[in-house]
C-alpha cells in the first residue's frame, strides 16, 4: 500500500494532516501536503482512507 499526494493540485488545506497526523504533514515552505510515511502500517490505514475522502482537491491516493 503506497500513499501519494499529487502536489500540482494540492491547495495546502491540511485536511490530510487532521485526518492522519502520523502519516501527513504540511511543508513549512509552502504549506502543501507531504507524505511522511509512504508505506503506512495497517493501523494507520483508516486515517489515510479518511484523508483520501476528505482531501478537497482529491489529490491523496492510496494504491493497494
Amino acid at each position, binding site marked *: 500500500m503506497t500513499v501519494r499526494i499529487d502536489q500540482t493540485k494540492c491547495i495546502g488545506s*491540511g485536511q490530510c494532516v487532521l485526518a492522519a497526523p502520523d502519516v501527513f504533514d504540511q511543508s*513549512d515552505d*509552502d*504549506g502543501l501536503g507531504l507524505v511522511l510515511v509512504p508505506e503506512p502500517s495497517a493501523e494507520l490505514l483508516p486515517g489515510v482512507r479518511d484523508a483520501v475522502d476528505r482531501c478537497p*482537491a482529491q489529490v491523496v491516493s492510496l494504491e493497494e
Partner: protein
Amino acid sequence: MTETAVCPVLHERDHPLQPPVGFPEAVGDGPVKMLWPNGVEAWIVSSYAGVRQVLSDARFSTRKGGQPEMRTDEGETVLDPDQPGNINGIDGAEHMRLRRPLSRGFMVKRMNELRPRIQQIVDEHLDVMEAKGAPADLVTSLCLPLPSLVIAELLGVPPEHQELFQATAGDLFGKNGSKDEYLAHATKLAEVLAPIVAEKKAAGTNDDMIGLMANDTDFSMDELIFLCIGLLAAGHETTSNFLGLFTLHLFEKPDQLEILRRDPSRADVMVEELMRYTVGQLGGAGLTRRATEDVEVDGVLIKAGDWVSVSLIANLDEELCPRAEELDLERDAVSHLGFGFGPHQCLGANLARAELQIGLRSLFERFPNLRPAVPVTEMDYRDDMITYGAAEIPVVW
C-alpha cells in the same frame, strides 16, 4: 415543456434552526431547476455526491461574470467580479496563484500556534461576561468580538493599529447597510491597512499574513488589501453566527448538551458534528457555480451555461452518515461539506475550527448551567441570505 418550479421563499422558517419552509420537499434528491425571485433560473444540487462533484469538477466555474446573485431578490452583487484579489470568483491557475501562497498562513501547525492566543481572548471575554453578571447577550459578549480579534492576530495587525482596525471592521460588518455604505467602509478599512502593509514591507517579515503577502508573493497592493478585507469578510460573521447557532442547537437538545458537558475534551470532534448538522439544517441555496460544458450530475444533464446552486442540505444526506438528520455528538467526525469542497473549500476552515472548539468548550466549562433567557424560537434572527444567525442571544447561568 414543463414549467420551471418557483423556488420557495427562503426566508420563511417554521423554526429558526430548521430549513426554510418547503425547501427540502421542493429540492428532493435533486437536481431540480428552479426560478429565483430575481428571474434567474438555476439548478439546485442537493445530494452529497452531487455537491462534491459540482464543487470539485473544473467544468463548473465560480466566476459570477456580472450576473445577479441568485440567492437574493435584489439582483445586485456587492462584489465586482473583476475586483483584484477576489479569490472566490476566479478559477483554475488564476485562482491557484492567489490561493497557494495563502495556505502557508493557515497551516494546521500555524493554527495550533494560535490556539493559546485564541484561548486567552475567549477567557478575557468570559471574564467580563461573568463579572457583569447575568443576563448577558452571548453575541456581543463573545461570538462577535472573537473572530475579528483572531483575524487581526492572524493578519498581524500591530497593537497600535488595533483599535482603529477593530472599529473600522465593526462598521463594515456591523449592520446590513446599503452597497454605497459598504463600499465607503471598505475604503476606510483599506486606508487603515495601507500603512500596516508598508511597515511589514519595510521590515521584510513573513511570520504573519500581511507580512507573508507583502514579502513572499507577487500580489499587487490592490490584491493584497482586498484579500485582507476578504479574509475579514469571510471569517467574521460566519464564525460568529456559527458559535451562536451551535449554542442554540444545544439549548434545544439538552441530551446533546449533556454529552458535551460530560466530556468537553471531545469538543474537537463534536464541533465537526455540530458543523455538519447546523449547515445542513440551514438548508436553502448555497454556493453558486456555472457549467462551462455539458455535465451530467446525479443522472441529469446540466447544459453549458446553466447556473447551479449547491445546497449544503447535502450534509443531511444518508449517503454521508447514518441517521444524518439527527445531531449526534457521540458520532465520529465525518467528511461533511460545511466548509465546502474542491479548490475553493474554506481557506479559513482550520482557523474557524480552532475558534469554535475553544469557544464552545470554554463557554460551557465556565458556565455549566448556561441557558437561554428567552425561548430560542422567540429570539431575533438576521437573515441576509448569505449569513444567518441570531442577532442577540440573551443567556443566564
